[in-house]
């Protein structure tokens, strides 16, 4: 069992990062910390994709003009998907942070519990 997990260490890290990110989204009362948790969740998924592209003993997908027929390369496709996802993720973070600034402007707090109290008072 332990050896099986050691051979899949990036997948285990993927699971751990997913859980830590989700925990931050749910348990942190500060809105900025929730967004950072979302980012950690994201990087966990990126790690999963990059691992699927990885080939042991291969090289990065920069293919010289005359490549040996037997040379192993990491798959470029998952890496491209992750590149796209990173940029989209930052766009998402930017919108979320803009909303956080707007919430602070309207309610004067970023704490989830205080926000809930203010909302029920209205």
């Amino acid at each position, binding site marked *: 069992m332990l050896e099986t997990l050691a051979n899949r260490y990036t997948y285990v890290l993927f699971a751990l990062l997913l859980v830590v990110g989700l925990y931050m989204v749910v348990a942190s009362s*500060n809105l900025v910390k929730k967004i950072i948790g979302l980012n950690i969740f994201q990087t966990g998924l990126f790690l999963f994709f990059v691992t699927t592209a990885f080939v042991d003993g291969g090289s990065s997908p920069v293919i010289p003009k005359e490549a040996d027929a037997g040379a192993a390369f990491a798959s*470029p496709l998952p890496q491209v998907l992750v590149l796209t996802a990173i940029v989209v993720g930052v766009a998402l973070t930017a919108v979320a942070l803009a909303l956080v600034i707007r919430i602070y402007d309207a309610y004067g707090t970023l704490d989830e519990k205080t926000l809930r109290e203010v909302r029920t008072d209205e």
Partner: protein
Amino acid sequence: MTELFAAALFVFVLVTALATAALRDVLGVVVVFAAYSLGTALFYAFLLAPDVAMTEAAIGAGVTTLLLLLTLAKTVRPTPDQWLERPNLPALAVFGALFVVLVATVVEFPAVGEPGVMWDNPGVTQYYIENAYEDTGVENAVTAVLAGYRGFDTFGEAVVVFSAGIASLIVLRQVVFTRE
């Protein structure tokens, strides 16, 4: 020796992620998150994805940290009453269970870096690797796929970034900052 390095990297990324979750002070969390970003970019570089590592370095560590700092500057930074966050036990129990489920799935995956695995997708990957230079004239297969074979995907990404910029501007235009 690569196994030892992978183990050290694993510990570093895990420790930084846990510290990000546990720390109370928001500015401290932003700084620690920057360190976490460094670790993940190193992990991508180790897993033979230099382009992804470069993007994570410039965008993950650079732009995201800057955006978070700008948000903190525009809002309030509560003085931390304690060093660490108080653990939320129900959430810990739920996500501990989720972790167990995820690990039960993970053990069924093929080992890391094993050639000929289920998502190896030999057809497409092999085509890109063999024909990228002839078709596009670029040695870097990632660039060839990003801008050539899957150019429309990248166009869609640009549309998303543009809409996100517009959305942020619309949201921020209504901010009046009455609470200075």
